[in-house]
């Protein structure tokens, strides 16, 4: 055993793909770039690669930090590194920013070669399946025929699941965390509120706000505030903020009074300062559209029949956005197909956000699972 360590200084890499990518929507992306990071070394058999798929607001920057910014720690740094559950001494770990993203891969802020201007609202809709296709091409480029594991939480878990259906032979293990085989109506409803906040912001300009030198920051802030409420549990929010008043008593104002208001506004402003509104719209639609059982008349066991990977499915007790019941749907559908599957429901008070935290039981389970994977 070694003390868990950071992977240290990392640098993003870029891959350009000149071959057009046909999309689920019927559109085609003529060419594109993916930005990605890797940690650890690909072994000589090329059998130790692990793909980490990001969720709604994530990126390729999974672990480590950039040389010029010691605080730029990757979003899943507590999971990935030497001696950490996803051990970078054993595995070659890849993080990739998805198409339509705003962290360097081709997306709405990129220049549309046909017009010489940012894609903006013209950027085609992208789905979980499209992301998997793009990731598969990156895997081809890196010489990885079969992943030891594909891992993701939330929307990232949907990508891991979709991989096992689109490319069953290329996935040995899928780790699907705080995810779902499809969104519920309530979940789509939250996404729609977030989208309406952005779409109705006067600074949205039909998605072409880049040309106007503005961003729909108010809408994006509201979208993030709504999202944040759903990522936390009632208990966690109560424990953290309760009814704490900034001034100790009511001052009868619409300025911040309750601390939860301060927190949500801060989180919303911070997010609106770096994230692209068009990317947010696209990613929420990708979430809504994901439903592998749809083509099978809603029969999830039939939809998951092609999967041959071994699965670990994990949920969190207080996650009401992607509840344990949604994870169990995946588990029972895999069981129906006699696939190797394990399922754990982690006791946590942190709601959906739990998947990003380093709960001891959760990380011990992931460490044990990754440790068993043969490379």
């Amino acid at each position, binding site marked *: 055993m070694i003390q868990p360590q950071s992977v240290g200084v990392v640098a993003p890499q870029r891959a350009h793909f000149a071959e057009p990518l046909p999309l689920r929507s019927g559109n085609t992306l003529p060419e594109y770039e993916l930005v990605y990071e890797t940690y650890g070394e690909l072994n000589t058999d090329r059998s130790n690669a692990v793909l980490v798929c990001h969720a709604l607001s994530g990126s390729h920057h999974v672990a480590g930090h950039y040389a010029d910014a010691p605080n730029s720690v990757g979003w899943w740094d507590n999971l990935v590194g030497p001696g950490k559950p996803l051990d970078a001494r054993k595995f070659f770990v890849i993080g990739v920013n998805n198409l339509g993203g705003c962290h360097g891969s081709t997306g709405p802020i990129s220049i549309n070669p046909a017009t010489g201007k940012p894609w903006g609202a013209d950027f085609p809709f992208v789905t979980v399946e499209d992301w998997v296709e793009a990731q598969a091409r990156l895997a081809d480029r890196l010489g990885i025929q079969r992943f030891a594991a594909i891992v993701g939480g939330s929307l990232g878990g949907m990508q891991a699941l979709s991989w096992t259906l689109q490319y069953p032979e290329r996935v040995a293990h899928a780790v699907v965390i705080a995810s779902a085989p499809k969104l519920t109506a309530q979940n789509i409803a939250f996404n729609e509120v977030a989208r309406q906040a952005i779409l109705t912001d006067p600074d949205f300009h039909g998605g072409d706000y880049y040309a106007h030198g503005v961003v729909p920051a108010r809408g994006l802030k509201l979208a993030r505030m709504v999202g944040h409420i759903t990522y936390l549990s009632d208990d966690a929010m109560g424990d953290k903020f309760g009814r704490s008043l900034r001034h100790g008593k009511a001052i009868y104002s619409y300025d911040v009074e309750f601390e939860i208001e301060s927190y949500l506004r801060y989180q919303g402003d911070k997010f609106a300062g770096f994230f692209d509104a068009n990317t947010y719209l696209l990613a929420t639609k990708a979430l809504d559209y994901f439903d592998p059982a749809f083509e099978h008349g809603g029969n999830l066991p039939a939809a998951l029949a092609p999967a041959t990977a071994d699965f*670990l499915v994990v949920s969190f007790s207080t996650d009401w956005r992607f509840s344990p019941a949604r994870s*169990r749907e995946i*588990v*029972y559908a895999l*069981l*129906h197909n*006699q696939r*190797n*599957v*394990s*399922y*754990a*429901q*982690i*006791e946590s008070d942190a709601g959906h956000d739990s998947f990003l935290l380093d709960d001891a*039981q959760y990380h*011990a*389970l992931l460490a*044990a*699972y990754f*440790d*068993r994977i043969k490379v």
Partner: protein
Amino acid sequence: MSYRYDYEVITQWIAPGEKVLDLGCGDGSLLKHLAEVRQVQGYGVENDPDKLLACTRNGVNVIQMDMEKGLAGIEDGFFDHVIMSLSLQAMHNTQGILAEMLRVAREAVVSFPNFGYWRHRQSILNGRMPVSESLPHQWFNTPNVRFFTISDFDALCEMNGIAVRERLAFDEGKLILDEPNFLASVAVYRLGRGG
């Protein structure tokens, strides 16, 4: 890895390649054994985080579930055998889980400690709750919540229309043929749907 002599009996009743569900599978050692010697497609059920972790380390499929609430989600007749090894006495919903076991599997295999074992009776006569190889806990820390004998279980099966297809009784590993309710510390049953 723990290993118990009732595993040998259970293994004899499992055919190669079966689908097996082990309720209260602990660290998964029975399933691992069955995978090795019977090539079963096995799944364990546990609700204790430490045991889930142990199963994961042993490379055994394990599904977290509260068995007290039944086996909802598992299809009727999906499994060839469902096993509950030395766990029935630790469950409140005795009749519910027996019905669920025979719903999801063709046959159920159940083993439990016999509270009617003569050493246990002797202990009670001496005024103390029994502590033995088959009942290793003290009264104040035992996970067991149901205290029953082989005769009690036979009566329950008859009352619930459960067919006892085979019953083997043991005294610390030795097969007991006569007076099992008095001389056996552990019983292993093979059960089916009656009628």
